[in-house]
């Protein structure tokens, strides 16, 4: 049943209609006698994307599986006050160059978005495609202070924080990191311990797991007795993950299954983990919608303070509630409601003029639902 990886088109079998049909049929047979549909949460925005882009969601529903999106989009969960602080800085300070990823520039806040902001003289906001590019900007712009506003989960944290190491080695003293670095396992724990959402199991993010490995989710099975599976990003990958979760439920033996072995090793990526341990320390971070979660954020250790934007520049990170009125992104991120339950969805909030970050990011549940689901516009 596991698709073969051919060398000519390595992913063809992982998305072919035939493979999908067989997997869906198997899942439907497994769920047949359960009596009720299973609610599984996919943590990762890229999983949400695959489910919609391949058109699988309605078929999964027929097979007795309801998929709920979780908080797995760094653009979505980074609170507004990060953006507002950087907007204040770039509009008031001269010769500041803010480098950030494309989606981050469109997040709407009370002070507008980075995209609509008009920077002070000599200052600029630039979209970068990789952390290395932010560093390159610092090498090329000696007359400016370059701030890399880097947001990410475990997948991108190592490459984001590595820029600081390189900046230190290369004596780039005008390079700073505004770190918006978030950890997935504490967010899962927060969702579970709140008890607000009824979930029967998890599809764990593939690339986060490639860094942190399998053990990081063990508490879900041990403490909360819930099954889960690490899955890749092709349609068949996700279905294999779902199948594993369904079987764990039927056998009453929850564990952390790894259905993405072609990428994820049990121990994760030791090199990346070592770099994170060397340079970063956890702190109780604020998430949009989820509030303050213990030890869920990472920040530079004191010995790297020279590169920490908030410590060296006039940049005040003051936690506050700032969601625009009526926007239910916070509840969407917790899986409490779906995008269509929000009164703004598809009406006042559309991709061209988003009211909340979930409609901004390519991994945001609202944008994905709007973009790929027939009838979205009509609600």
């Amino acid at each position, binding site marked *: 049943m596991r698709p073969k990886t051919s060398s000519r088109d390595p992913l063809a079998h992982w998305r072919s*209609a035939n493979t*999908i049909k067989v997997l869906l049929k198997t899942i439907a047979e497994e769920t047949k006698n359960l009596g009720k549909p299973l609610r599984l949460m996919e943590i990762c925005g890229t999983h949400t994307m695959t489910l919609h882009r391949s*058109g699988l969601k309605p078929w999964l529903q027929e097979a007795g599986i309801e998929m709920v999106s979780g908080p797995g989009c760094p653009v979505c969960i980074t609170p507004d006050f990060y953006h507002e602080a950087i907007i204040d800085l770039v509009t008031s300070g001269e010769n500041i160059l803010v480098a950030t990823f494309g989606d981050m520039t469109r997040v709407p806040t009370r002070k507008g978005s980075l995209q*609509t902001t008009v920077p002070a003289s000599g200052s600029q906001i630039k979209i970068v495609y990789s952390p290395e590019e932010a560093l390159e900007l610092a090498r090329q712009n000696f007359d400016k202070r370059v701030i890399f506003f880097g947001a990410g989960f475990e997948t991108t944290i190592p490459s984001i924080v590595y820029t600081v190491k390189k900046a230190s080695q290369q004596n780039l003293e005008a390079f700073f990191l505004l770190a918006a670095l978030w950890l997935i396992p504490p967010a899962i724990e927060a969702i579970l311990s709140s008890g607000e959402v009824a979930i029967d199991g998890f599809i764990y993010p593939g690339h986060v797991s490639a860094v942190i490995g399998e053990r990081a989710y063990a508490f879900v099975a041990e403490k909360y007795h819930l099954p889960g599976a690490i899955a890749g990003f092709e349609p068949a990958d996700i279905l294999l993950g779902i199948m594993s979760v369904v079987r764990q439920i039927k056998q009453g033996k929850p564990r952390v299954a790894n259905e993405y072995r072609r990428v994820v090793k049990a121990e994760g990526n030791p090199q990346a983990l070592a770099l994170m341990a060397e340079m970063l320390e956890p702190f109780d971070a604020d998430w949009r919608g989820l509030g303050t979660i213990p030890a869920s954020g990472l920040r530079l250790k004191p010995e790297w303070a020279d590169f920490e934007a908030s410590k060296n520049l006039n940049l005040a990170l003051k936690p506050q509630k700032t969601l625009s009125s009526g926007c239910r992104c916070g509840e969407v991120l917790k899986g409490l409601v779906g995008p269509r339950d929000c009164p703004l969805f598809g009406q006042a909030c559309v991709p061209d003029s988003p009211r909340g970050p979930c409609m901004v990011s390519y991994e945001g549940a609202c944008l994905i639902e709007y*973009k790929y689901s027939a009838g979205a516009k009509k609600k």
Partner: protein
Amino acid sequence: MKQVSLEMGSGGRLMRDFIKDQLLPALGNQLLNELHDSAILPSGLALTTDSYTVDPIFFPGGDIGTLCINGTVNDLVVSGAQPEYLSLALIIEEGLEIEVLEKILLSIKKTTAKNRVGIVTGDTKVVPRGQADKIYINTAGLGRLQGRPQPDKIKAGDKILVTGPVGEHGLAIMLARNNFQMSSRIKSDCAPLLFLLPLWKKGSLWMRDITRGGLASVLAELAERISYPLLVEENKIPLSRALRGAVEILGIDPLYLACEGRALLVVKETEASQILTWLKKNPASRQAAIIGEVQDKIGKKGEALLQTSSGGLRLLEPLTSELLPRIC
């Protein structure tokens, strides 16, 4: 204060709103209100204009010179007109090397010859350094009508064709900017669509050059204009092997990547296989394919649907936000 944003020129919904809310109330008239690629003038003529600001100005497979001629010619062709005369206006940044300008003019010369059109009037402006980026070009084209798009005649069963692999111009530009530090064999598909003109007399009901917003946006726009939903099959959409690999790595949906020498056609059901054979004989459209059809069973009016390679069904929305400005 409301300001013009890049997205208002990106070809997406914000641009359509801008045209509807700002331009038409001020300037609208019977001909302009149609918002076609070209205005169809009472005397059997078609008139179009386009400005070109591509960055970088030279890219694999073409340059701003080939683009500014082919783009305007193609707009006339898909409106049913044989291009006859062009105008050319140059806005040049002070300091541009003459050698660069000569190279662009040579491209323009070659491309006009290929399209059998002449440039009969023009204008040159030079602006101070920093007030433009190297060179911007505007062309206008006048053509004589050979046929007429008939969107109202489109009905269930009619076939949807593309004239070749899609997305190569958009990807070539993206890679030429070297933001991804990735090299590829991909070249822009920038080319004339003049060869499609005879199809207006062979059963073509509608044509559109696939530019900004890509195939998906053209399909979404077509669906809004006609009375039936559309369904295309992902597996049937021609994509080059090199492009497949690159979009996989970059995580880009190829259906939203621009072309500059490909068209989407809707043809009568009865003529479809003949037209496909005719297209395949031409080297410029050897990889043409029927990718779908106009529906009366699946979907609702106004919807463009995609049958995915995994067998699912999803909606094709027009491009909404453009993170990579100035591709044409």
